[in-house]
């Protein structure tokens, strides 16, 4: 066993330990933040260096390949950007900030391990590690208004999460019962032998349920808007952007197994995708709380990502990876603005953004770029991602799905645009200008650049994603 393969994870674990030791004392929040950010930046570098590594660990339950390493890099990169701009951590009680960082790192560790797991039970363990940390993060909010919505959100999150895990475990028991193995690379040929029996289809779909939960696809979406609204802005940023990468990685692994049962799984996925889009977009239309709105829009975007999987083809998976990466960046851009506009960590209504372009031009520009990108308007990454997914789906004969998805794009524009619209409205009583610190400015510029660069020149990212997908389709 070459532990060098495990180095990025070990470093992350070490980082958790450092933060844990810090939490025992009474450190200045600034110092904790700087140390955590530094550790995460180093782990990004470690991941980048390990991008080409290959190998198996822990009795073949843990695989290191381009696919897993790419996702690790994206997850840690996203976390680094998030830490760089959420400098103030306004929404978290001052005496628990060190612990906040600890659980943030633990949840990331769970995700980072999740994308490498190729055995059912280790998948569950990694997924639960990341989820449990989040169950703790959600109620950690500093509640100025005393509404205690964060408690309600936390309880909902746990309850739905446990149900989703239950469904997933049940599905796994099906797969184990049918194939006699918990290793993905043994299950795949066994399924191919059994063929598309109902048990296989149901088992696969139930396993996917656990990841649908993380991603917010329709029947497992109930938690999402409430948790987005109830958790602090910083926590929501994390939940909105980063665990989705892990979910997509595992969904690709599981749908990759579904080839023999392709037609039935694909048609179920297609229905879920379309329902998610309609449900998410139509509900988002009427939201006033911007985090809640983005929550519903996340359900719609989850539907879009699924479009990459219904084709059960390498190219579709690659486009899904491209899309979810872009989605993470767009979300970070939008939530950056939300975190900064909120003065005490309170929730932001759409109307609170009124006159933003007078208060802070750079924030309003970031918001505009982020929202236009989410809406799928060229030349931003959101458009390119949707375009690729739609092309791929149409190429495989999903004409109706594509037309419905295009229709959804048109619906979604309305609420994204309304956010941009209010930021250019002048309001009656002028609010003071917003000061934005240097590192936030830098991150927002970087996010905008990534959104444009990925949209204009997607070839590089798609190529990497394609070779990553190839590395798991043996």
């Amino acid at each position, binding site marked *: 066993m070459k532990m060098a393969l495990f180095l990025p994870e070990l470093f992350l674990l070490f980082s958790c330990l450092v933060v844990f030791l810090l939490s025992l004392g009474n450190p200045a929040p600034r110092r904790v933040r700087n140390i955590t950010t530094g550790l995460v930046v180093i782990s990004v570098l470690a991941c980048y260096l390990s991008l080409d590594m290959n190998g198996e660990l822990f009795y073949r339950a843990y695989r290191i390949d381009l696919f897993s390493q790419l996702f690790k890099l994206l997850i840690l990169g996203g976390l680094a950007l998030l830490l760089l701009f959420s400098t103030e951590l306004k929404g978290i009680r001052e005496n628990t900030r060190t612990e906040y960082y600890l659980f943030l790192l633990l949840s990331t560790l769970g995700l980072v391990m999740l994308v490498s797991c190729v055995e059912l039970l280790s998948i569950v363990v990694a997924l639960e590690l990341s989820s449990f940390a989040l169950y703790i993060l959600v109620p950690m909010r500093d509640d100025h208004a005393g509404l205690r919505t964060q408690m309600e959100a936390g309880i909902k999150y746990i309850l739905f999460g446990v149900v989703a895990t239950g469904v997933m475990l049940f599905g796994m028991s099906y797969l184990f019962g049918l194939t006699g193995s918990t290793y993905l690379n043994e299950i795949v040929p066994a399924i191919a032998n059994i063929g598309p029996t109902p048990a296989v289809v149901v088992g696969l779909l139930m396993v996917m349920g656990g990841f649908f939960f993380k991603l917010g696809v329709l029947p497992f979406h109930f938690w999402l808007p409430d948790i987005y609204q109830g958790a602090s802005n910083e926590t929501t940023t994390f939940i909105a952007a980063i665990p989705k990468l892990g979910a997509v990685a595992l969904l690709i692994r599981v749908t990759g197994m579904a080839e023999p049962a392709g037609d039935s799984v694909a048609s179920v996925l297609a229905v879920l995708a379309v329902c998610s889009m309609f449900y998410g977009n139509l509900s988002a239309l009427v939201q006033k709380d911007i985090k809640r709105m983005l929550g519903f829009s996340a359900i719609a975007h989850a539907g879009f990502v699924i479009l990459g999987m219904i084709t059960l083809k390498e190219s579709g998976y690659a486009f899904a990876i491209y899309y979810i990466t872009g989605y993470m960046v767009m979300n970070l851009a939008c939530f950056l603005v939300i975190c900064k506009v909120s003065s005490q960590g309170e929730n932001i209504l759409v109307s609170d953004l009124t006159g933003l372009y007078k208060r802070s031009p750079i924030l309003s520009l970031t918001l505009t770029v982020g929202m236009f990108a989410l809406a799928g308007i*060229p030349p931003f990454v959101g458009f390119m991602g949707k375009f690729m997914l739609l*092309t791929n789906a149409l190429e495989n004969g999903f004409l109706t799905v594509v037309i419905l998805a295009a229709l959804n794009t048109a619906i979604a524009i309305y609420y994204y*645009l309304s956010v941009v619209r209010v930021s250019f409205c002048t309001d009656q009583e002028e609010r003071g200008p917003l000061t934005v610190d240097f590192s936030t400015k830098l991150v927002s510029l970087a996010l905008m650049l990534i959104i444009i660069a990925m949209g204009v020149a997607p*070839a590089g990212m798609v190529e990497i994603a394609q070779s990553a997908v190839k590395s798991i389709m043996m």
Partner: protein
Amino acid sequence: MQDFLIMNSLGFPILSVLIFLPLAGSMLLFLLPSDGGAKFWTLLVTLVTAAISLILYRDFNTGTAMFQFGEHHAWIPMLKINYTLGVDGISLLLVLMTTLLMPLCVLGSWRYIKTRVRPFMFCLLIMETSMLGVFMALDFVLFYILWEAMLIPMYLLIAIWGGPRKVYASIKFFLYTLAGSVMLLVAIIALYLENGTFSIPMMMGNGYSSAFQFWVFLAFFLAFAIKVPMFPFHTWLPAAHVEAPTAGSVILASVLLKMGTYGFLRFCLPITPEASLALMPYVLWLSVAGILYGGFTALAQQDMKKLIAYSSVGHMGFITLGIFVFNTQGIEGALLQMINHGVTTGALFLCVGMIYERTHSRELAVAAGVGQYMPVYVTFLAFFSLSSLAFPGTNGFVGEFLILAGAFTHNKILAACTIPGALLAAAYMFRMLQRVAWGGVNNPDQSHLSDLSAREILTLAPLLLFVFWIGLAPKPFMDIMHTSVAHLIGQVEVAKIQQSAAMLATLVP
């Protein structure tokens, strides 16, 4: 290389330079120390772009219908998307019009824009990049990206620097155009699956099945008809025009609307000729409806900008009429009229902007009788109004005459129905001119108004030059388009023959 593309042999990629020069210029804007500097810089960038575009005119070969000055690079290889550029006789005039208008837009906003000058100029330059790209793109994805990307700067132009109802107008403009384009995207993907390429010229005349053509045509039509805008899809236009700043109105009227008619010429006719032929009567009668509706509504306006905006609906009706009669005169007239409308309506919006800068109102009643104190202004306005109502000797006459001639060859009843439209144009234009030049007994006191400054004369004079140049000697302009239009007609004729052959086949078993 592809046989539809004559590669660029100028020693530098002229089309890419034209597209990216404004973009590069926009990047440097924020490094400039002052707003005044930003204006001069933008003017310089647009002037250099215009100067470079004249090389296109100089070196353009009018003897071929192929795309010239071509550039071809792989862009997104996994989807066979390329960066392909080229211009032919149909797009060259529009490219030239765009580059030549932009400096005038900068000049027209010199005083008008007082706040956030640098972002404004930034938006103008980004607009120029995407507009030029739309007319040059020969790859459908490239085209679509630029076509949509242009919405963002235009949205910002209206939403930030617009009039009192700017937010309403900008969002309406955005939603309308975008809703139309979404289905265009699906059609583009469908065409890609049929052809295995996004190359526009390779999609032309491929003989798709009738049902396929029908659906693709409908998607095209929705997107382009909204952009034009054709009669029932026009409601975003008056709102956007009235609220947009002067430069925004000029760009909207002169270039953006042309993108719709350009879409009809470039995509509908060659790619879906059979569907275009089959649905032609509906489009023609919609055009006639637009001509009459635009005329009557313009007649009722008190706001000068609204008046010109509604007159645009009518004029654009003439253009779609010319396109869909499918004969040489009609299409050449429509193409010329696209340029004419760009020149004339752009100039009229600049004129309204000049009044607005002085009186802070666009009401006819407020502007009544300014002729007494602004003789130079009224002279310009008079010539542009005459051009707008197609007075002989001006550019509008040549274009409208050709379109009507084409329409009469096609269908006499249809053509006769458009005559009241031409009369209406005279009525509303003369009404405006009369009020502005002389007004009546209730003229407000305008003795404080100053006549046009040298800068303003410099803004309008080039447009006036084009009014008479095209009006008196349209040959150089017509020469550019002849071969390409003939080629286009050829493509539609083939479909006509195929259609009648198919009909014969059903009749004779």
